[in-house]
């Protein structure tokens, strides 16, 4: 219940700026917050093309274990980087601390230091593709 109130507050805060009035669920015309029409990006469009080098591809493949052998895959990757790069055009105030979570004023839940779990080897290893005498997981080569 409490969380819901906070969520309300948050929504009020962001909508207040737009409508300049207190937000009211009943007044909502559409029962969704997803815009119903195409919204033009408020970001500056960047047209600079991104090129990924051969070495970078090898490194990325190694890091992510994603196969980038096909040309189309590399194109998707380059387009993705280009799309995400728009974020660099946003002007941010260095003096404002970034918001990582809307619940930042809430305390993290802590747990008493007690053993309440474990000894479920069978469950834990159930999904293993390969094991060594059902004792160890065996990693792929």
């Amino acid at each position, binding site marked *: 219940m409490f969380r819901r109130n906070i969520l309300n507050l948050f929504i009020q805060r962001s909508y207040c700026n737009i409508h300049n009035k207190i937000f009211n669920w009943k007044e909502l015309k559409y029962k969704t917050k997803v815009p119903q029409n195409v919204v033009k990006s408020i970001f500056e469009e960047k047209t600079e093309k991104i090129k990924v080098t051969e070495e970078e591809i090898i490194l990325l493949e*190694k890091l992510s274990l994603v196969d980038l052998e096909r040309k189309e895959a590399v194109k998707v990757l380059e387009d993705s980087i280009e799309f995400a790069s728009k974020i660099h055009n946003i002007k941010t105030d260095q003096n404002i601390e970034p918001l990582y979570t809307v619940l930042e004023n809430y*305390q*993290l*839940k802590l747990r008493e230091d007690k053993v309440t779990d474990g000894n479920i080897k069978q*469950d834990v290893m159930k999904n293993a593709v390969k094991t060594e005498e059902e004792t160890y997981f065996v990693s792929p080569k």
Partner: protein
Amino acid sequence: MNRIYKINIITILNRQFSTKLAPKSNTWKSVIGLEIHAQIASESKLFSGSRNSFSAEINSSVSLLDAAIPGCLPVLNRRCVEAGIKTALALNCEINEVSMFDRKHYFYSDLPAGYQITQQRKPLARKGFLTFPVLTPVKQSKAYYKTVRLHQLQLEQDSGKSLHDEELKISLIDLNRAGIPLMELVFEPDLSDGEEAAALVKELILIFERIQTCNCRMEEGQLRVDANVSINKEGEELGVRTEIKNIGSIRGVAQAIEYEIQRQISVKDQGGVIINETRQWNAVSKTTIAMRDKEVVQDYRYMPEPNLLPLHLNMTEDVNLDDLVSVKAIEKSLPILPQELRDELVNDHKLTQVTAMILVNDTVIYNLYKDIIKENPKRSAKTVSNVLINDYIATCNKNKIYLEDSKISSSHLGEIIDMLENQELNHNLVKLVLQKLFETSQSPKVIVEENQWKQISDDAEIIKYCNQVLESENGKKMVQQYKSGKTKVLFAIAGEINKISNNRINMAKVTDMLKNILK
């Protein structure tokens, strides 16, 4: 993260450098920074309720969260937060009222989630420092104090363990260690050689022993040291550094760093270049070997951990609420730290700095010292420390008995101290009494009695011994020398008298008496 098991040693053995290195060049300066991973002494893991255990059956201390089964969420262990704060306070840190968790991504088979939860942007504590004694085994008289700054202290998860089966060419994974709580202590590069680094680790272990946040069994990997080593010439910029990973003993820290410094010097003196790489210390061959896992700069793709809210602490009040740990309460419960013990020994017990360092450096010895003095506060601190450091440790070493395994009680040692102070026993017989004590475990008084080691301090008897020497051929010669002005001969005469009394005679009385006789 522990990568010690990941290296296929055989394939990189041919990269090993020769142990014969060029002699040390005086113009090079070495700079060392340590990163230390300490497993927190807790019952359960950092984010799950499975047991924090070293010796459990393989893959048994694993919860679904530790195995990264989708749908599980981490819940932070309160004890680990308290342990982190306690350690940070002992290391004079600034504690962050709000700290945050981040994901650090690795692709390793013993890290099932593909990331480690750690604290990168806003760790639990920052900006600490530690002052510690540097007491090298060779030159004990040249002991000094050194201060090192602590950059930050963060909470993080340990990874699982990989074992390589060379025969079957497979990697076996045990997740018992996955999720065990760690404190990572990142020190600034303020150290200048291996001995200082070893002394820092030693002091940390002493602190951990007192505040009990880490059990420090290095052989079980509870305390793991990474060392960043570089060399440069006076006035120059810092050199390129190499990182030695996972050194597993205090002596290993000193040896690995000394080896690496010498290796870098010999590379540079031969016109070579040091490359930024990770190296592994091989305790058997006493060399560092290049590891192959860091050929390119790793991108850890840090991101805020979305499953954990920021961790808040109560900085002002001494009340412990459910989800809010009080820093003040922990501050109050902080025990006396090693440096305070040393100060007490120097200021109140009037011992020298070096004696205080040696006593506090070994908890067993310090506790014996404390017990002996407590039993009878009139005992001289100097005599007690002298017997413990010079006679007791030496006798233990001679019998190859670890100090912690010795069964000699503080009251028996106290008896020896009392006999010394009451002039019933000569100091040079203490080692013999201790040896008998190891063998028979009789009381020292009985040992002295039975072996007739009691000090001779009866005047008439002393005169008998004096005369015996003075009347011998050699004695007469020495008397002549003494009378012709060589006053130092007096000690030689006294030495002779001591010898024929089997080290039992009261030497102070002998010298006084000799001076009188020969006047």
